[in-house]
Structure formats: C-alpha cells, structure tokens
C-alpha cells in the first residue's frame, strides 16, 4: 500500500510526464501520465475509486460506453454534482490513472468533494479493475462481437463479469440491459439492487434477424428464442428449456419514433411516464439514453431531472457530431464493429425519411464517406466488415467515397453489396474533398469511420467548420 505522500509524488510525476509529451508534440498524453504515476504508486486505482464523495460509477459494454458516460455526466451536473471522468476511449487502467493525474493539482492533491466518479471501462479490462474501484453502481450495456484477437469469445467476457460480480464483497447496484441476455442474466449474481432498462415498443424491432447475430446459448445450454430482435441478439428473448427470460425493465421505452437527428421516446421510469427527445439518431442511441436514465434511478436522481439532462446534452466526441462545412451538413459516425455499423446503417436509412428496412425502395439519397483503418485500435483484421448488413444500403447511395488505410477492402465489401464507390482514396483530406464535392449544397454528408480514421477526419472537419459543431451553435 502506497502512502499518501507516495501517491502525491506519483501524481506530480505523472503530470510532469504528460506536460513533457504534449510539449514534444507526442499526442494528447492520455496514456503516459497514467503509466508513470501507476508505476510509482500502484494503488492509485483504489484511491481513485474512493476519491469522489458521491462514489464511483463504471460503464462497460461493447458499444455505447462513451455516449452513456457523456449522458451520465449531464445527469450528474443536473443533480448538482461535479464529475470526475476519464477521457473518451482512455478506458484501460492507465487511462483511469491519468484521470486521477488530471484531477490532481500541481501539488498532487485532488479534491473529490461534491463529485461523482464516472468511468467508462473496457469490457475485457473490467474484471481486475472492478474490486479495485469498488463502484457504487456498475452499468452493463451490451456484449457484441468485437476485435476477437483482443477480446476472445463473447461468452468468456460474460463469464468474467459474472465471476467478478459474485466475488464482490460490497453491494454494488447493477444497471443491466434487459434486452441483452448476456447482460440481463448478470442479475442472478447481484449483491445489491438491480435496475434494468429495455425497449418495450415492439414496433422498433427488425423484421428479421441480422447476420452478425451469433447463435446465443443460455447458461443451461439451450438456444435462446427471440420474439423480437432490435439488434443482433438483443431483443425480447427467452430460453425455451429453463424458463429464463427477459425481465420486465424498470426503465422502458414504451414508444419509439426514430427521426433524422434524434428520436421521440415515451419512457416509463418505475411507474412514471416521461416524454424524452433523444438527441442523437438510431435505436442504439435510445438504448444508451435508457441506460443513463436507469443509472439515474440507481443514483437516486429524480426522473424529470434525468430526462431533462439527457435531452439537453449533445452528442459525445465523434459520435454523431454534426458540423456545417461549406454549406453542407456533415455528420461523423464512429463504427467499430458489425453491431455498431448495422445500427448506423439503420439510422442512416431512417434518417432520410425511409423506414430503414428497405420497404419500397427510396431514391438514392445518401452521400457517404466511408473510412476503414487497420491500426491496433481499429483492429488489424478487417474481416468484420463482411458481418455487417451493408446490403441494406443498395439502391440508397447517391455518392460514395471509400477512404482509410484499407479503402480498397471497404470498396470491395460495398461492391459485394452491389454498391460502387465513386472514389477510392486513402488520403483523408483528398477523400474528404471528393466527398464534399459530391454532396449537394444544403444536403448531408455522412462520414462513417473506424476509430483512428474518425479521430483524423473529425479534426479535419472541425477545423473546416471553424464555428464548431452545429448542434452547439444551432438555435
């Protein structure tokens, strides 16, 4: 156990390291400060978990961590709390420690009075960090296939979560997605209260199962049956043999109306009814908003305040951020895995007035810049693009530019779906120009990109926009 003095020295050293990297132009310094400080005081994660007066909340799952954490920060502020939160994507141990370094002043002392700790944590990294952070509330969003070389099989991630919850010697509240069986079944090992969330509106379901959906097996060994599917294996599920089934959610979307830049949702919180405008498009955004509202219940924040906070918040960094560039509206979508990309495709189709399900083909109306990188953070294996149902875009694409390190692979994937790229170009700036040129004035250019590609193109778009994201400046 490091002493308080040791921790102060470690935090100061981390800060110095961060300032040095930034001065040397070696990036934003989200990893190094944590690595340096963590080396000097190995129990900073434990101390971080204790730092915030109102306790810590962890948010994990394959998709939606950053957005849900972003919404929770808005809720916490609405409830009069300050937040202590890690930067988007810095969700491994070193990222958490960097959060502590950033929170501490030059004297290595951090003040957690009035604060709520909000930490998004990588789904595979959570089990060892969980007993060290000892969160008051743990939020579990969903579990989809993602970079398999990094995460291994989905079932083993779920088993790691269950074991970690069973081993807890405190009583964390669990916030669970009722619609995802891999997540909902965690309630069986709960030590504390459980708050579930889910989509009740059956009209939001898909007409048929998606291809990225894995055969999901119950803990009893049987295959789950789905009466409704919202995305992948997420929906209204039950096990035909042991009787396990989707619980009735405590926080539910009883009616969902998907719109261009957001959704109108009737929400039931406990037995109270609320009208919610979700500020970003797509059913997955609705699910993230429900997760945030359910967490508010676990934290004791009143429903009205939570709903108000969610609808006043804008998109999180690079997650449907909207910009105005040269008379065109530009939206930036982060796509990391087949489930996420499927949801984006669905939201794109719905956002142009269609049903999103290709009933009665609408005219080609989408201008797209699609970017695929194959760095470590994107996944070096680009096979996953074949798991996404890009066939749904056929007949709807007015212009397509494929870009990124693996532009040619992406163009081929779309060709297999019957969609021809107008331009295949690896360079981000040239590709962006080509895509803007092919987008009519007053129309929308949608940029769909993997993680590192998103970082690059988002900076470029923001610089071109000058005035900032339009959701910030629009009335």
């Amino acid at each position, binding site marked *: 156990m490091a002493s308080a003095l040791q921790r102060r020295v470690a935090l100061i050293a981390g800060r110095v390291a961060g300032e040095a990297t930034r001065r040397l132009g070696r990036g934003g310094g989200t990893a190094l400060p944590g690595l340096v400080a963590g080396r000097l005081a190995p129990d900073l994660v434990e101390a971080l978990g204790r730092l915030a007066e109102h306790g810590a909340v962890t948010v994990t799952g394959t998709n939606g961590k950053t957005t849900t954490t972003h919404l929770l920060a808005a809720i916490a502020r609405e409830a009069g709390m300050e937040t202590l939160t890690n930067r988007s994507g810095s969700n491994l141990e070193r990222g958490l420690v960097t959060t502590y370094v950033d929170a501490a002043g030059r004297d290595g002392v951090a003040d957690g009075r009035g604060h709520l700790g909000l930490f998004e944590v990588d789904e595979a990294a959570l089990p060892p960090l969980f007993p060290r952070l000892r969160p008051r509330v743990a939020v579990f969003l969903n579990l989809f*296939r993602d970079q*398999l*070389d990094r995460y*291994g*099989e989905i*079932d083993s991630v779920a088993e790691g979560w269950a074991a970690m919850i069973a081993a807890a010697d405190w009583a964390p509240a669990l916030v669970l997605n009722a619609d995802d069986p891999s997540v909902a079944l965690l309630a069986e090992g709960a030590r504390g209260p459980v708050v579930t969330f889910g989509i009740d509106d059956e009209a939001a379901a898909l007409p048929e199962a998606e*291809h990225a*959906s*894995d*055969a999901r*097996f119950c803990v009893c060994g049987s295959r789950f049956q789905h009466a409704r599917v919202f995305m992948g294996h997420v929906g209204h599920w039950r096990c035909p043999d042991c009787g396990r089934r989707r619980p009735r959610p405590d926080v539910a979307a009883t009616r969902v109306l998907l719109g261009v830049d957001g959704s109108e949702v009737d929400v039931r919180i406990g037995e109270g009814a609320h009208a919610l405008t979700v500020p970003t498009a797509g059913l997955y955004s609705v699910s993230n908003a429900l997760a945030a509202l359910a967490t508010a219940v676990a934290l004791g924040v009143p429903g009205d305040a939570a709903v108000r906070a969610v609808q006043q918040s804008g998109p999180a960094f690079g997650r449907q951020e909207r910009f105005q560039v040269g008379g065109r509206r530009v939206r930036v979508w982060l796509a990391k895995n*087949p489930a996420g990309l499927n949801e984006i495709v669905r939201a794109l189709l719905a956002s142009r007035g269609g049903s999103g399900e290709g009933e009665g083909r609408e005219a080609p109306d989408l201008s797209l810049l699609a970017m695929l990188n*194959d760095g470590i953070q994107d996944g*070096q*294996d*680009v*096979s*996953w*693009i*074949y*798991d996404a149902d890009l066939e749904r875009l056929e007949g709807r694409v007015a212009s397509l530019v494929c870009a990124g390190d*693996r*532009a*040619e*692979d992406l*163009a*081929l*994937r*779309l*060709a*297999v*779906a*019957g969609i*021809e*790229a107008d331009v*295949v170009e690896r360079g981000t700036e040239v590709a962006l120009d080509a895509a803007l040129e092919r987008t009519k004035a007053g129309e929308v250019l949608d940029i769909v990109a993997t993680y590192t590609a998103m970082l690059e193109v988002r900076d470029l778009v923001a610089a071109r926009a000058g005035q900032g994201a339009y959701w910030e400046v629009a009335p």
Partner: protein
Amino acid sequence: MTDGAGRVIRVLSLYDDVMNVYADRGNTLAVQRGAAALGLEADVLRVSLGEALPEAVNLVLIGGGQDREQRRIADELAAHGPRLREWAAEGVAMLAVCGGFQLFGRWYRDTAGRTLPGAGVFDVTSVAGGAGQPRCIGDVLVDSTLEGVGEVVGFENHGGRTYLGPAAQPFARVLYGSGNNGADGTEGAVHREAIGTYLHGSVLPKNPRLLRHLLAAAARHAGIEALPSVEGADGLMARAAERAHRAAVLVARRRGRPVAR
C-alpha cells in the same frame, strides 16, 4: 447449356449460425455474386445443428469457430463425415476455413485436452496451442499449389496447429504469416476439389482467382463446363476484388511475419 435455367450450382453452407467467427459470411456473399457474374445461379442451402444434409450439392462452405462452438458441432459434423468424404471423392468443391478446416480433418485436440472427432475430408490433425505457445495472429500471404490461383492473401487467427498426414497435400506455401503450424511452411490442405485453409478476411472476395477456381469446380460438378472468361465476368466486384487483392498483398508484405528460410 447456355440458357439461365440449367445453370444452377447448389451450395451448402454448414453451421453458419455457429461457425462464423471471422465474418465467414463474406465467402457465401462472394460465391453468390461471383456465380451471378459467371451467369450461374448459386442456390444456397443452410444446414445447422439437428438438421439433415441434402441429397446432392456442388459446393460446401464452412467457417471458423472457437473451441466452444467447435465442441457444439463436432459430433454432428463427424456423423456427416462419410457423406462429406463421399462428396469430396466425387469432386464436390469445398472451402473449410479455420475451425471448420480443423474439423474437416481427422481430429482436433482442443484447449481442454479433449479430442474432437473430425469429418476426415483431409488427412490432417490439429492440436490446440499449449501454454506459452502464442496464437498465430496476423496478415498472411501464401503461394497456392493450385494451378492458376497464385498468391492468396488473408488474415489468420488460430491457436491450433495443424499437421499434414501422408495423404494430404498443402493448399499453399507460406510467404508471410504462420500457416498450418508456423514451422513447416505449409498452409491449409487440398483433397480433389476440397480446400481447407486458415485464411479469412474474408478470403474469397479478395482473392478472385481462388473464387473463380472454386466456382469452376462447383460448376463442373454440376455438369456445367463452359464458363465465360474471367475478363468477361461482371465488372463491379471483379474490378474491386483485383484492387483489394493487390492492396492486401502489400499490407501482408509490409506487416506480415516473414517465413524463416
């Protein structure tokens, strides 16, 4: 036969809801598009757990799965072994990828030390990687032993090591990557028109000559001899495939682990 009616190839997609870990669906999509470009119609039949095999097919596809999925299908697949071996002997085209390749061999000893029976299409055996043995993960470039196929590019991610038996022919020689076992320079296996490989990516879309080879074999088995030349085939996917193939080859040469000679 030149009219559309008789130009159907029957494609069997095995356990694709269980064995699809690395987007193996891309191979089925490529077969459908590629067949259409050659004036063929690919009639895809999916057979999964608890379902019977059809009477006759021209092409069999099976993808990858990890140990858990392999355990789920192994006994059933092994029970289909005699039929699959019969088909292979009569020249049915097959593509078995990764975990599917392992289970198309004689047997696979999994991470728990349990021996899973295989369908026995290929004279190969596979053993899960032991403790301290790294997984074989990365870009792969191989030189195929099949005439006219040439370089095949893809991505591998497997813990198991596969060893060729005396009756087995390798599918390819490894240029970059690990291949069957990271030691003997072989990749995959070939028996008549059946191909087993560790390459995904998906492998068929971005290797147009391999796709053509497989479709030609399937068409031959269906009694369709004359196929249009590759040059005459449909433009969109073919052009994109050539380009993606060349780009992926460069990635593998830059990033793949060179084979020690």
